[in-house]
């Protein structure tokens, strides 16, 4: 009796985990289908599919950072800087493509290492460290590009041109990263340690496991994912030094809508992906019904707050019964 009922309750739990988010997404799609003409068209979905890969990849890294009870405000700037390095080396220095990409990824990794290193070595709050990195990387971007947009000519066309079963390479890559990251979180030793850092860092340390290594790895990963996203972003928008401004807040919003706690210790990459979809569907749908920027922002803000409130009740339901004395 015990085993099968445990299995059923686990399945129910999984379903409950994803069902809420999926339902919210479907609700949005139905609403926009009603109020916008031609919302259900290939164009709409292609627009959405084109817009989500870079933010999805960044939001995956952000999910991990939030799970270890940190925050990474520098993602937008790291994206701009690694994109700039990619553009400048490829177009102005005529480096071969693999070398440029290696440089781009290296820059992202280095920024992440710096973030994580400062957080770990001096025990600084990641909010402050990454706020600094937000400025540092942005400034470096302007230096690298001489404050001008570097046009990519045809160097990165392969990123956007090819498709796999009708899906663009960036889209497929983003989905692959989401799935892989969720597997890492759910099934690996590293995933366990991330949750442990966010739940009770002291207890982890006293269990003989170094929380510093885990934190460092997570910040490096976040930086590296920014660089991966920058390849996609640069292919589509050129190496503009203003790329990715405000992206950090969008990524955090997506993660939080997906129910990951800012206090750390719990989160889900799949739900983060739903969070990205909700934000992008909302954005595209509102644009289609002709909403202006102020309205768009107002509604997006309301959705974020509503999502967090819903999440609060969802967790209260799951938390009871309370402990006893």
């Amino acid at each position: 009796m015990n085993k099968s009922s445990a299995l059923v309750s686990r399945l129910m739990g999984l379903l409950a985990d994803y069902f809420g988010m999926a339902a919210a997404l479907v609700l949005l799609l139905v609403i926009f289908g009603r109020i916008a003409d031609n919302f259900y068209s290939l164009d709409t979905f292609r627009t959405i599919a084109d817009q989500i890969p870079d933010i999805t990849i960044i939001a995956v890294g952000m999910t991990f950072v939030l799970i270890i009870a940190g925050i990474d405000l520098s993602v937008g700037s790291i994206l701009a800087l690694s994109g700039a390095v990619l553009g400048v080396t490829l177009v102005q220095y005529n480096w071969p493509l693999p070398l440029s990409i290696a440089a781009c990824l290296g820059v992202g990794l280095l920024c992440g290492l710096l973030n994580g290193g400062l957080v770990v070595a001096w025990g600084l709050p990641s909010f402050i460290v990454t706020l600094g990195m937000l400025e540092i990387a942005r400034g470096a971007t302007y230096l690298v590009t001489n404050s001008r947009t570097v046009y990519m000519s045809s160097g990165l066309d392969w990123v956007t041109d090819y498709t796999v079963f009708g899906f663009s390479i960036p889209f497929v890559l983003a989905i692959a990263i989401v799935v892989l990251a969720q597997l890492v979180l759910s099934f690996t030793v590293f995933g366990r340690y991330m949750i442990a850092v966010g739940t009770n860092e002291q207890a982890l340390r006293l269990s003989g496991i170094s929380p510093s290594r885990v934190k460092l790895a997570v910040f490096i990963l976040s930086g590296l994912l920014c660089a991966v996203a920058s390849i996609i972003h640069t292919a589509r928008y050129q190496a503009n030094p203003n790329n990715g401004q405000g992206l950090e807040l969008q990524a955090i919003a997506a993660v939080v809508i997906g129910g990951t706690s800012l206090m750390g210790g719990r989160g889900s990459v799949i739900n983060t992906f739903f969070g990205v979809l909700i934000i992008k569907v909302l954005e595209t749908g509102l644009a289609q019904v002709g909403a202006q920027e102020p309205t768009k922002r107002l509604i997006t803000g309301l959705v974020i707050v509503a999502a967090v409130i819903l999440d609060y009740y969802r967790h209260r339901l799951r938390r009871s019964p309370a402990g006893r004395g």
Partner: protein
Amino acid sequence: MTDTGSILLEARGIFKSFGAVQALSGVDLVLRAGTVHALVGENGAGKSTLSKIIAGVHLSDSGRMILEGKPFQPSGRRQAEHAGIRMVMQELNLIDTLSVAENIFLDQLPSKYGFVRYPSLNHSAQQVMSRVGLDSVSPSAIVGSLGVGTRQMVEIAAGLSRHCRILILDEPTASLTDREANLLFRQIDQARNSGMAIVYISHRIEEILRIADEITILRDGRLVSTQTTQGLTAEQIIRSMVGRDLPPRQRAGKTAGGTIALQLDRLCAGPKVRKVSLDLRRGEILGLAGLMGSGRTELARAIFGADPIDSGTIYLHGSDKPARIRSPRDAVRQGIALLTEDRKQQGLFLPRSIRYNISLPRLESVSRAGIVNRFRERKVCDEFVQSLSIRCSGLEQPVGQLSGGNQQKVVIAKWLLRDCEILIFDEPTRGIDVGAKFEVYRLLSDLAARGKAVLFISSDLKELTAVCDRIAVLSAGRLTATFTAPHYSEQAITEAAFQEHLRPAGGPSK
């Protein structure tokens, strides 16, 4: 004493459940003015739940309470406090970043134009504090900088400072030294003589026999009996609490002849560990006695690499090369385990499952290429849940929902899985019920029998003398004496524990 006082509070047929767990099933309790009423029972028996219902923290599912002839149904803690009922909780309720005085008078800070009047605040705090013997602590000391025992006294001082008619103390002596406990008992006596009713929850039977007038025994949420304490013996109480007899308390008096597992040479760490030299052998249980704040926990943390070592050397496993332990990670890799005093903050991941908590320190043993094999993990954890008889609804139950004794067993399971050669237990029996305590003792003996080296820190001399092969005594950070079984004398050990405090002030001791 006065056991015929007038009835202050009467609770009848109290039921309470948390989800599927029935915490109380039809419990009655009568509190009389001018008496101390002890509530005893194993963890999870419902003592805390019952008192929290009286204190307005929980609402009962059914049943009624009458306070001085009037129906009483507090809707919250505030309302109960208004009616003169106060509870000092087992979990400390203090704000670490505020001072002692601010904590004691948090809800009634004296102020003028919104500014706190510190002189008057500190003055009244000083008075309250000296009543519980906290003269040595400054009222403006920050609570976070104090030890657990002192914090507990601050909490009790805060409870006694208010006007109240019913005072509920939940495990007040769990982290107090004998001296502090005696001061508390004197306070309780005074409160009783002034006509208050005191509900006293404790696992320490000797204390209850000493101070309680009446005793109510609970088992699994049901009332076993209420009677006057006079004429009762500890054995009788324990038997009706547990519903069975206890195993004999004596460890087979074997002398340890194993090789040296851990050797300390003039170890200094921070202000509280001063030139400690001792050795611990395989197959031995070495007790570490001392007053609260004598540096026992600090010594354990220094050995474990949790706090830095200032000077001195640690040798491991009989090697003559100094061991390099700079973090708990180093320590664990070299076979040292530390079961911390504060298991909720430092030992457990409360919202996480039993499975998660047990397997965490040694995930690599149930995983391959970094991927955890859940099947093997469950199997291994299941074995520990069985062999330690951890009472739970399943491996997936969050540890935060377990009783104290079962939480402690989860901590033990986690370190057994890690299979270290040297195990340091820091107050492993604090706040857990008698049955679980004996299971811990048996476990310590088993570990020693299997050749492990066990360092057992405890404030309970009786358990140290019953379980340990040798007992070392720390006093103000120094090792003052070591005793070998069976030549124990509580008198001598206590004297050794006070030794560094009895020297003339100012004269530095060697």
